[in-house]
């Protein structure tokens, strides 16, 4: 242990890390979201069904996320990253990221009389009001999140307070956080 400590001290200091690109940060955050959100059991078709994350509108994120999740498990499940190209592609996903404003169709299919337990993440100012659950926004040149708790509850998902602590909580009607 002493030798190991001396060895560590003998190594040269590591170089400062290179700043991540936004799509990389988003991909990382998407992966991290899954740690702080709890899905109901019926969200998965089988006990050994993979955790499927669907990405729409940003192939970089698909690539980055695939890179991040390689060899890893989420909720003790294999991770599948799918690129959503059509309205059918998002079916079976537990998390969906929609880049841009083309989200109402998907959101609509997920809500309605029988909402689906799918965590929807967007990057548009109207995403939350449009039925989305988490929305990326840039603040002080830093990528932050805002969460719609009502939509979260409607989707049957539970969000950890740790995630709430780092995000801005919002409802559909107003942008004020709940009391």
């Amino acid at each position, binding site marked *: *242990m002493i030798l*190991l*400590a001396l060895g*560590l*001290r003998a190594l040269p*200091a*590591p170089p400062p*890390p290179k700043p991540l690109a936004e799509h990389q*940060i988003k991909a990382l*955050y998407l992966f*991290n979201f899954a*740690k*702080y959100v709890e899905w109901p059991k019926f969200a998965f078709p089988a006990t050994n069904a993979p955790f499927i994350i669907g990405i729409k509108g940003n192939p970089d994120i698909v690539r980055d996320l695939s890179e991040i999740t390689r060899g890893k498990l989420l909720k003790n499940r294999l991770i599948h990253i799918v690129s959503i190209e059509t309205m059918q592609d998002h079916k079976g996903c537990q998390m969906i990221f929609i880049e841009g404003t083309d989200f109402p169709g998907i959101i609509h299919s997920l809500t309605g009389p029988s909402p689906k337990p799918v965590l929807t993440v967007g990057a548009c100012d109207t995403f939350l009001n449009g039925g989305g659950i988490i929305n990326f926004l840039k603040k002080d040149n*830093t990528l*932050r*999140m805002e969460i719609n708790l009502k939509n979260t509850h409607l989707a049957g998902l539970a969000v*950890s307070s*740790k*995630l709430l*602590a*780092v*995000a801005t909580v919002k409802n559909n009607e107003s942008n004020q956080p709940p009391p």
Partner: protein
Amino acid sequence: MNFLNHLSITRKQTMIIVLTSGVTLFLTCAGFVMYDRLMVRESMVQKMHTLATVLGNNSTGALDFNDTRVASEILSALQAEPHIVAACIYNKNGTLFATYPDQILRSYFPPLDPASFGHHFDKTRLTLTQPIMQQQESMGAIYLESNLTELSQRASQFGTMAVLVFLITLIASLVMSFWFKRLISLPILHLVRAIQTVSEKKTYSVRVPKENEDELGTLTDNFNEMLAQLEIRDQALLHAHDELEQRVVKRTRELRAEVAERMRAEKIMQGNSEQLQKVNACLLSLGDTHADNINLLISLAGNLLNASTAIYSRLQGNMLCVTDHWQLPLGYKLRDKAEGHICQDVIRQNSDKVILIPNLPDTAYAASDPNVLGYGLKTYMGHVVRSEGQVLGALCVVYQTDTRPSENEQRILGIIASAIGNEDRRKQSEEQFRQAQKMEAIGQLAGGVAHDFNNILASTMLQLNLLEEEPGLTPAIQAALKELEHDAERAADLTRQLLMFSQRQTVKMISMDLNKVQADLHKMLSRILGEQIELVFQPFPHPLWIEADAGKIQQVVMNLCVNARDAMPDGGTLTIAIHPVDLVDIPASGNPESRPGRFIRLSVTDSGCGMDEHVMKHIFEPFFTTKELGRGTGLGLSTVYGIVRQHHGWIEVTSEPGKGTEFRIFFPALSQTPEVSGEPHAPVVHHGNGTILLTEDDPIVRKFAAQSLRHLGYHVFECANSTEALTLWSEHGQEIDLLFSDMIMPGGMNGLDLAEALKQKSPGLKIIISSGYSIETSRLSVSWEDDITYLPKPYTVGLLATVVRRCLEQPA
């Protein structure tokens, strides 16, 4: 530790208690502080670890989403923990992510080093670095730094507390030490003080106060007990010392007095030696004559003591009075009665000291004793005369002047009184010895004569009996034969009395009440004594048992009464009295056979003519009589004497001419009341048959005895001695039924020896022993008593027939 040796036990005890409690407390506190410090440190580490874990967990979100603001907010919660002085969170790359407090420089925190994970204490702080983990994935690390204020505060509190406790304990131990002092050291100190007091003041009266009931209490008790014993011994020693001192003083005083007395005595002795020489010369000059010796001694007493009168009074009877310078007047006779009250008092007091009575006229003796005034006596000095412990009388010296005899003179009186006693006793002994020898000689003579007489009479009587039965005798011859037979019987009677005197007559001892025998005789006595003599019989109200031959006792009484009757020809009173007496001492003038014990006294008293001294000396001798010729045989009192001696008794006689005589006979009393035995049966005359071996050395007796036996129907073998008898036995032993043998026979084998020899050969043999003497009972063994029939000589044919028949009829 040597310094402890010089400390007092109290200080040692205090020191031990304080040191022990102090060290114990110190070790306890130190251990507790160490333990507490360890526990506090552990607790601090644990708390820091918990804080780091909580903060780390809460920071995972901030780390995941790279939100330093949130991370800083999380760290700011540490404001609630004032001891946390610095904290930071490193991200996954080891870059400082968030710090606490806000104003702290980032350079304050060390770069993240995985090797330094864990906690570290230095002098002033505790640092903890631990990774932030999320689902087994390292998210970064958290670093916390705490100051040790709590630890030092706690140490300070503990220190203060320890000092307080130590002080309280010290006080408590001192108090306990004081208390223990009462329990342990105080009793020891008491003991030490007591020992010091005993050692310094040499007194054992101190006592150690007892404090408690433990071993020290026991030690105190034992020590006090030891002191008490020592005190007693000390006092005893002191007492003994004082007593010894007193005795030494007293003895010294006595020695001085003795020396002075001795010096005075030596002076006196020079004068006394002449007197003692005279006493010695007188004692050496004493001769055989009693009266002369007494006179010499009394004269010496008078001369030496320079007395005007000297009296020698005997206890009973006579009194010697000597006057005129102690020369007994010629022909002076002893007076019959003792006179002088003082002499009797001396005798009664029976003291070995001289009785000295001065101023006689002023005492009661002047009235009670005629000599006092009669002779003008002023001073009296007397000493008892005693011999072999027996009081005989008193030697008394009187003065017609007021005289104070010296001690030496008193001593001389005692010496002469002693010499008189010895002389008197010597005289009595000589007289008694002479009398006894005379009586013994007469008895032997009478016995020998009687034996020969009996043999003659036996043959005579047997021959007369046979002659009487001869046919054709004329009446004149028959009358003459009867007369001869009567004479022979009178002769036999005389012989029997002689034998009785010589104590060779058989006595048949039975237990009898002496009262009853006398009562049996009362009628006969009245007839013998006649009307002129009054018979007074005084029996004792209760039975008085003696062992005696009733017939012989009757004979004693009869003989005495006949003598009394003869002493009272003009009538008078005859008193017979029976009384028990207990003799403690031997009477002075009593019979030499008298002895202490319980006796029955038979006294026969008459009021007749009495006897003078000369007659009294001879009354028991056979054939001595004062009666007219033909009135008495002179054997009456001799018979009484012999019978009484055979009954182990003795006779005392008191007589005064003209006044009467008293005979007192003493028989030994039986200690227990015996069972009354039956009267012996009278013999029955029988003819018979059988074979008799007749052994008799006297040919005439043998001849007529054999003739009589054959006449009675028996077959008889005759022999003259034992040798012939044994020879005859060898031939005809089987036929012989009875041995009829004389007792005394020549040839060394008497009748008893022969009987014994034949009895061994034929145990069933019947035996009759005949003798002119009484049977020699001393030769009979006890086993033979029932097997032998005794037949005294002379005997008639009728008696012979009865004895032989009864003997043969006895079962074997």
